């Protein structure tokens, strides 16, 4: 596998991408929250926003967006907040609550088992 240092680590670039904001609303998105575009990219839009909107033509997890853009997850969350606030995307949050250290009910786990057996 070819590896190269990630250019996204450059603080200047991150600063530009996020318009200087450094904190996303961390609770707004889980790694596996599925993002769906609600509009086409429009002219003059920030290039990262354009790429996200194209990618999320079909539901796409936050972590997949981060991998695809080559940006840290936290930065992607900031970008997503912008798009969510302006109604350009919607978010499908996981049913299993992230803030509850609790097991999913047996009904959900049964569905997971069926899915795994069908692999």
């Amino acid at each position: 596998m070819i590896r190269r240092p990630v250019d996204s680590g450059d603080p200047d670039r991150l600063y530009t991408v996020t318009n200087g904001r450094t904190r996303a609303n961390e609770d707004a998105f889980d790694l596996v929250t599925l993002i769906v575009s609600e509009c086409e990219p429009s002219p003059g839009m920030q290039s990262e926003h354009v790429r996200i909107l194209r990618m999320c033509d079909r539901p796409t997890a936050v972590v997949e967006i981060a991998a695809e853009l080559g940006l840290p997850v936290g930065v992607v969350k900031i970008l997503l907040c912008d798009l969510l606030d302006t109604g350009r995307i919607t978010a499908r949050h996981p049913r299993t609550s992230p803030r509850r250290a609790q097991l999913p009910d047996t009904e959900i786990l049964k569905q997971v088992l069926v899915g795994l057996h069908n692999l």
Partner: protein
Amino acid sequence: MDSTTSELATSEPAVRTPLASTARDGLKIAIVGGFGVGKTTMVRSVSEIRPLNTEETMTRAGVGIDDARSADGKTTTTVAFDFGRISLNDEMVLYLFGAPGQERFWFLWDRLFSGTLGAVVLVDPRRLEDSWYAIDRLEHHGTPFVLARNNFGPPEYTLDEVREALSLPAQIPMVDCDARSRESSKAVLIALVNHLYTLSAARERAL
């Protein structure tokens, strides 16, 4: 992967495989273990996409040893992790995360893996001690887990002996596996979800 540099894998861009438009429920399972134990191999064996790599950073005041320290005295911890996914049905998508077991990673555990269904602790039987820390942290976070022994050769010890060496409680399932095999990796995931099912059913009965 070198723990001090942040790297993303950049092999030729794969054609993205989109999810079904009906997908709405993302689920998480973490595969944790020491360096080179086979985490990425296991993710690759069962994933419907080529494993992808990403990273998360966290800025803290005053903690950290080998981390970048900026002018304001804060430290930034960066951890890289890879992941794959399995579409379970029209609506549910399971994401599998290969998580490095080392200390710095656990600072980010809550942020990344709160709400995770459970974890697979992958161990190399020649380096059992590499998994102590991960087991301790999972117990601390109350994350249910199973232990999977990735056999790089014929095992020298029985699973019972391994259980004893790791002081693992009897109710925690242990399985042998070959992370390169899809069937074997699938069996590990099923062992984990069966374990979760048992725990969840016990809780429902208690309600």
